[in-house]
């Protein structure tokens, strides 16, 4: 069973089409990176998965259940960390733990305390007195303490400095390994996704342009640099300029003229190519 399935999901904010037939699958136990530019539809997708929004069209299944009417029992199995957590400013970390914990039958108070210590979140400091990074870590602790089956993170490191970001990501990886939780996190930071995710989804203009393993993506897309113009044969599709995509086997079998340089690309280069084109990888 997949942890998350979206089928032809459409969502509009008034006249603005946020999602335009999005299809996506997140497998159980994996860490899934959701990549896209600002406004691509990442936050909308995660809000739909949390039941905070309702799709105009399409089916969404989370942990095997439809989210058309998100029941509390399903929500209790999902952890959610948003970009800027709006905690009650007067509550301390402990008070927030006590408040949030009362909504989850599976809440593990000891685990919450352990997470606070591990993430270096002061227990008795009010949320209003915490830095953005500490608040995000607190959000992660609150999301993980009920031991959710699915953890949704919406650009959790967006407001963090590079050191805090690295620290957060390391801890996230450790926790995911430890808990075996399915993690779906969105980001527009390609390096971060490359470091953390086993599989990625690239969303652009409200629809998914690629979904799969990072290695498979890098095997499909390459740059052909040549002194003279080289035109690959059938099965190759130009993404942008000198960047082409094709089945990995075709790249190996192709006979390249002398002088032609075929190079693999970083995920960032591939993402940039997708971000500026309408192509879709099958």
């Amino acid at each position: 069973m997949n942890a998350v399935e979206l089928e032809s999901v459409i969502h509009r904010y008034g006249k603005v089409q946020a999602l335009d037939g999005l299809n996506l699958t997140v497998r159980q136990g994996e860490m899934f990176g959701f990549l896209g530019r600002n406004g691509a539809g990442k936050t909308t997708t995660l809000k739909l998965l949390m039941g905070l929004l309702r799709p105009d069209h399409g089916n969404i299944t989370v942990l095997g259940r439809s989210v058309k009417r998100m029941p509390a029992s399903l929500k209790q199995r999902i952890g959610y960390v948003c970009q800027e957590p709006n905690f009650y400013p007067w509550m301390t970390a402990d008070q927030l733990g006590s408040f949030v914990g009362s909504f989850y039958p599976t809440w593990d108070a000891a685990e919450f305390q352990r997470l606070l210590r591990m993430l270096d979140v002061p227990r008795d400091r009010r949320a209003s007195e915490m830095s953005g990074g500490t608040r995000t870590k607190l959000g992660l602790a609150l999301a993980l303490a009920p031991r959710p089956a699915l953890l949704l993170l919406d650009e959790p490191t967006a407001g963090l400095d590079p050191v805090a970001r690295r620290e957060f990501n390391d801890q996230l990886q450790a926790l995911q390994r430890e808990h075996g939780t399915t993690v779906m996190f969105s980001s527009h930071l390609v390096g971060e996704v490359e470091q953390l995710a086993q599989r990625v989804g690239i969303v652009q203009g409200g629809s998914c342009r690629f979904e799969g393993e990072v290695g498979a993506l890098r095997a499909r897309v390459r740059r052909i640099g040549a002194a003279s113009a080289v035109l690959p044969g059938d099965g190759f599709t130009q993404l942008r300029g000198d960047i082409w995509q094709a089945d990995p086997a075709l790249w190996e079998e192709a006979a390249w003229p002398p002088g032609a340089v075929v190079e693999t690309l970083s995920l960032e280069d591939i993402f940039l190519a997708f971000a500026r084109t309408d192509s879709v990888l099958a």
Partner: protein
Amino acid sequence: MRALVRKELREHRWVLLAMLLLLALGQTLMLRGAGMMGSPMAAFHKIVVLMGPLMALVLVNRLVVREYMGRTQLFLETLPVSRTQVLAVKWLLGIALLLLALAACLGATLLAARGKVTLTPHYVALVAIRGASFVFFSYALAFAVGLTGRYRFIIWSVLFTCVATAEATGQLAIANWAPFYLIHESMVYERLVLPVQAVLVTCGVAVALVVATCALALAAEGSLVVALSRRMSAREISAVTIGFLVMIMAFSVIEARKPKPPYKLARAVRSASGPAVAVGIAGPAPLAQQLADTLSSDLARMQAFLGLTSPAALTALPDDALDGDAFQRAALPNADGVVVRAAFTNDAFDREGFRAYALASWMQWHSRERATEEDRRWLLDGTAQWLVARDAPPRQETLALRAAFAVRLLQGRPGGTDKLVYAWNSAREELGPCLADALAWKMVASLAQRIGAPRFQALSRSVLAVRPPDDARASLFAPGFDGLLEQHGAPDRATLTRQFQQVFGAEQARLAATLDRIAIPQVRFSARRMAGKAYEVHYQAGPAAGEVPPFSVLYATLGPWDGELPAELLARVDGTRAGVLPASFARGTRLFTALERREAALGCSVRLAARRWELK
């Protein structure tokens, strides 16, 4: 759900505590002052009226507005609790707190009223149902408006403006609308009948507001309320401010005012010719006819002097309850026109004074009360007297003597005659109508003589003969009195003060012998504390013991913003010796007190020792 309730109570505990303390303080004060209100149960009425809406606003502000404006509801939404549950918890918690507070107040009031008021279960239920229905309505309205986020102040302003406009134009009696009818002052005095219809309408409106609240809070996955709760941008603030000002202007300017029908007196004699004057018949009809013709002739002369073409009808009603030199203008809520009252058949009826009063009343009506503004009121009072007395030397001599006596009284008081053209209303209040009218006549006659008849006529026309529009334009575009004085070549007010004082000085010298014969008794008002915290006010005119010439004590309690006190609001006690006012007053009450005595040499009542003071 319990976690949500605990969270709310913990978050707002200090505010709730402060509110409960305020409520307890208010309840205590109200109960202590309940004796003055007629019944201890009146304290509960005051609490419901004052604290009910206030507490509803505070609770909604804390429970709803703070949550949405702080965007913490976004955090709540990520938890396994539905929007409906959150809304229900907030709504029910607020109304429960409000009703509990109300119940506590009712309980405290019942304890205090035990033994003083007959308390039956039926009566207590009546009071409780009326109070609870009103509080339910207040809370439902506050909650619905609170959800409109940044527009809530605008909505409140619009609501208040609409209510005030409806009330002011007299087309709608808001006080009779069901929710307000329930908290009418009679609320705690009605012992038998429950106003079922008012209760049903109030609760119906409240339920409709609850439905609107749910629709607003849950529509579009709550995104509507979230959008409304964003703070206003600078552009939006500017647009709203300008829009609001324009709306008020538009309300004021283009409001279609329903013209009131003219006042008609069925049984009256009417002037034979000239402007229409009706006089109610009291005593012999020929005398009434004579008065009607005289008043009509006065109106015609005033019409010619002020350049008016169609003066409205004037009606004079007999009122034997008044003194001969006391006149009143009737308020006409449902009719238009000028109606004045006097004791025509009283032997001491001051006919000339009444004629001038009728003219002044007519000019007040014509200028839509603008001529009564403090900077120009002396001109109005004086011109009316001047028009009546200008061809009557005996009347002029009487007025001159009264004016000189008025100046003598003022000379011993703070401000003296310096304040006359600046603070005429307070001088008028100190002197009483008879002396003030005479003094105004002296000032006007002096001004007319100094600047010449044509200029004085032009000045009078620009001040008294203009009928301004019945809306905000009257205040915005009407020229100031100083500008009008300058425009017509009259001295400014500082110069006028000096010139008047020269005239007053000459008159004091001329009439010194007559004035010296008029005794001015020592008048004294004093407050003495009774048992408890109430005070009684003692008065004395002349010696403490023994009889003195008849006098009247006038008094009234003052509100914080009370300006001019109409004669009909003054309570009166007649006496011939020192005494005590027939009322007790709470500490801190502001009072107006004065003593009036008829002075034969002046031919009218003279007001002495008038002042506003506070009981300490």
